[in-house]
């Protein structure tokens, strides 16, 4: 992960904002010999200038983020609420408080610099430390001199609004399990290195009588040094093996544990009885290598979260009306009967009844249908909707955790548990492997005991178990897939864990969500071609379009949103044709060429993803709008490559008005399903799976969350990976959308690499077993073959997966 420089295409003729680099479109504020696009950017500059923090602008050009889009009206009153505060802060002794805030805006070194110099802006802050990858800042501040609310407000003012969500409140403590892996690795390495050093004399021969005392000393020192490895570093393997046995499975950790125990037991016997040097060096080395593999496999993208649920989307606080006064309350404290105020663009946190105001609720977050629903007072409004327009007053019906949305979530999360973690290749291989090894060991023992050579029988039996301890075998999977997950990460495809790659390699069916997944979220491109329109005409078109819920009308209305709404009469909407109304005595029509009277126009339909909307005003025919659906670039190509090998489906929460456009991608008889509720999507995937299909789901919103969970590999497509995405197995940056075919092929190649490396490590095992059966396994031989096979596997897997990435054009 590199720091991305803010790259923006700058038009040389127009002025760009000194703060954020956006072109100054609507207004230009000239101040301090610089130009700003809005008052917000200027204000930030002034704050920084006043405090001598203009370094911010020297480190990177235009490092700021524009403040125009996000109205900086966020309220942080709730941070004064003692209960909320207690849940957010990590530590306080009454005066000094320590808190970690998540600030999604952090994107470059300027951000880092400014936030770490925050004490210059607020003298109450003692220290602020940025964690760049997690986009978190840890503040230590003095309660007497400043407050959490002041810090949050100031951060918001300078364009670094901290993000608070309900999730923050409920799971504040983050596990530090990663540290344990480092401790264990350190201990194992320390012991391994020293044991190796002390074992060297033995390899070179210490048979002389004079050196007998050294041999004993070294052996006992080795024994001592091996204790921390046995008692601390390797415990995870035993735990995992035991957990496997309890579930009736022989996982890879079982033969490992078996090998470790036998190896340690025999070494202990040899040292204590003075009959040999034991295999302590092999033992410690084995644990060290396998812990390395584990660390390598556990590559995680810390700044991304794959386990989000509705709580991450919900606000922390909401405005409540109590005894006629407005106050803010934590969302989790809202009780049925409470009266809440929801402002423009705010999320409704609980099922409620509308009391006052005009509800215009956008449920796209829940259902994917992006047409807002109008609600009147007395109507029921479900949690998860977003109010668009004026402030509304609601009476809460259920607590947040009891709302319909929450229940949907809980339902869909339950199902995943059953189907996960089974049928991994590793499990299948380890089962066969374990049984084979035990049979060979027993066979070797019996063979020698038939020759009445009991010590040799025991020797051969234990030697087989020692030499087959599947270190190399166990490392094939983590090293191949650990490398693969990094390669995919560099290509902006972030996976939750290595198992997802295995699942991806088996995919035969791909299900796409429409909005936000194969289309770019946000408005489509609108161009007008024809005679110039008067302001009056623009107002008419706008007013006409706002009366319709057809997606094209919504796009037009959004495009013309600066226009004024005027009174219209005789509104009519003819499905499949267009809209019409009388405005100022003139009949205005918007719609197909046929409907508006453009008979001569040849191509009235679709042409390279574009739809034309014709305009007529009375007898005049001023021109038409070209609306280009913002499908993802390269969509057609991607779909056709994928369609050649996999079964494709499209699921959309929207209505089927775009069916014609989508047919060019998915074909006339394409598997397209419209008006799907979140539950429908989930069931659709489950049906496919019942037909033994391996399904990959590509989705984006919470409405896909159930389907993403249900699918074998649920991938969230996101325009900005730091935005919130639903719980999933992987997050795909939308820019990498067209690489999906390569990603899938690369996943299958990775699995093939694992098979080959299994073969290689088995070959090593065969050689080892040959010596072991004959009872000739010397400690030196074990000490050579074990690291040799391990290094071979590490080199083979990492090199070949890197070459495979190059072959599939997945190099940076």
């Amino acid at each position, binding site marked *: 992960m590199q720091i991305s420089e803010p790259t923006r295409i700058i038009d040389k003729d127009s002025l760009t904002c000194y703060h954020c680099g956006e072109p100054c479109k609507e207004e230009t504020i000239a101040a301090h010999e610089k130009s700003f696009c809005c008052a917000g950017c200027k204000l930030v500059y002034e704050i920084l200038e006043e405090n001598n923090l203009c370094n911010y602008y020297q480190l990177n050009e235009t490092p700021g983020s524009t403040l125009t889009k996000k109205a900086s009206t966020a309220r942080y009153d709730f941070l004064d609420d003692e209960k909320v505060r207690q849940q957010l802060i990590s530590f306080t002794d009454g005066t000094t408080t320590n808190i970690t805030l998540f600030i999604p805006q952090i994107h470059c070194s300027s951000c880092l610099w400014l936030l770490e110099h925050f004490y210059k802006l607020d003298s109450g802050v003692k220290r602020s430390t940025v964690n760049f990858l997690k986009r978190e800042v840890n503040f230590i501040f003095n309660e007497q001199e400043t407050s959490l609310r002041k810090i949050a407000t100031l951060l918001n003012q300078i364009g670094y609004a901290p993000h608070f969500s309900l999730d923050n409140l409920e799971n504040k403590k983050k596990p530090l399990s990663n540290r344990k892996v480092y401790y264990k690795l350190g201990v194992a390495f320390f012991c391994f290195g*020293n044991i190796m050093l002390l074992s060297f004399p033995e390899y070179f021969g210490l048979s002389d009588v004079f050196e007998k005392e050294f041999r004993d000393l070294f052996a006992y020192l080795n024994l001592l040094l091996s204790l921390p490895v046995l008692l601390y570093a390797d415990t995870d393997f035993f735990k995992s093996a035991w957990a496997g046995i309890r579930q009736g499975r022989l996982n890879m950790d079982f033969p490992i544990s078996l090998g470790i125990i036998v190896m340690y037991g025999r070494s202990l016997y040899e040292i204590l009885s003075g009959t040999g040097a034991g295999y302590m060096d092999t033992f410690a080395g084995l644990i060290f290598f396998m812990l390395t593999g584990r660390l390598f496999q556990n590559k995680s993208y810390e700044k991304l979260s794959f386990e989000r649920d509705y709580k991450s989307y919900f606000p922390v606080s909401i405005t409540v009306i109590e005894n006629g006064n407005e106050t803010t309350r934590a969302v989790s404290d809202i009780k049925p009967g409470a009266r809440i105020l929801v402002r423009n663009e705010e999320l409704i946190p609980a099922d409620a009844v509308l009391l006052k105001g005009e509800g215009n609720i956008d449920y796209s977050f829940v259902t994917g249908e992006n047409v807002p629903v109008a609600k009147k007072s007395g109507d029921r409004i479900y949690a998860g909707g977003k109010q668009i327009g004026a402030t509304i007053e609601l009476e809460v019906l259920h607590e947040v955790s009891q709302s319909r949305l929450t229940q949907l979530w809980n339902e869909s999360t339950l199902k995943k548990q059953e189907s996960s973690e089974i049928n991994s290749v590793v499990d299948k291989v380890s089962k066969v492997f374990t049984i084979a090894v035990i049979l060979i060991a027993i066979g070797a023992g019996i063979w020698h005991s038939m020759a009445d050579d009991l010590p040799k029988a025991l020797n051969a039996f234990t030697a087989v178990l020692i030499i087959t301890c599947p270190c190399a075998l166990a490392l094939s999977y983590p090293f191949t897939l650990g490398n693969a997950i990094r390669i995919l990460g560099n290509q902006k495809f972030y996976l939750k864990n290595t198992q997802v790659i295995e699942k991806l390699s088996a995919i035969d069916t791909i299900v796409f969500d429409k909005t936000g997944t194969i289309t770019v979220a946000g408005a489509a491109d609108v161009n007008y071609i024809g005679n110039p329109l008067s302001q009056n005409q623009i107002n008419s078109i706008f007013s006409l379009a706002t009366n319709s819920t057809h997606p094209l009308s919504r796009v037009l209305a959004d495009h013309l949103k600066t226009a004024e709404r005027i009174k219209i009469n005789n509104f009519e909407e003819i499905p499949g044709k267009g809209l019409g109304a009388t405005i100022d005595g003139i009949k205005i029509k918007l719609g197909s060429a046929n409907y508006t009277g453009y008979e001569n126009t040849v191509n009235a339909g679709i042409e390279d993803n574009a739809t034309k909307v014709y305009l007529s005003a009375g007898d005049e025919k001023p021109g038409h709008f070209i609306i280009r659906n913002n499908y993802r670039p390269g969509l057609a190509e991607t779909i056709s490559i994928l369609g050649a090998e996999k079964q494709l489906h499209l699921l959309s929460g929207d209505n089927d008005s775009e069916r014609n456009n989508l047919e060019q991608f998915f074909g006339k008889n394409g598997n397209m399903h419209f008006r799907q509720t979140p539950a429908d999507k989930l069931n659709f995937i489950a049906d496919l799976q019942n037909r033994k299909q391996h399904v990959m789901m590509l989705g984006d919103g919470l409405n896909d969350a159930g389907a993403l969970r249900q699918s074998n590999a649920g991938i969230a497509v996101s325009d900005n990976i730091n935005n919130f995405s639903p719980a999933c197995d992987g997050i795909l940056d939308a820019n990498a959308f067209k690489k999906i075919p390569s990603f899938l092929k690369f996943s299958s190649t990775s699995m093939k690499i694992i098979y080959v490396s299994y073969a290689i490590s088995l070959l090593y095992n065969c050689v080892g077993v040959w010596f072991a059966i004959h009872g000739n396994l010397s400690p030196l031989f074990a000490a050579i073959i074990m690291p040799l096979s391990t290094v071979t596997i590490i080199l083979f897997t990492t090199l070949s997966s890197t070459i495979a990435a190059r072959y599939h054009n997945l190099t940076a």
Partner: protein
Amino acid sequence: MSALFLLIGISLIVATGFLIAFIWSVRKGQYEDEYTPSVRMLLDDEISKKEEQKP
């Protein structure tokens, strides 16, 4: 040969010292964030003055 006992003892003590240093570094959180320090060290408090003098 008794020098060897002493040397082995010393080598173990040195190695243990490194192990303790490693554990200390993990405990201090040096492995929690492996990226930010690499950027932070490049940031210089004085650059604004130098840069502004250039033009």
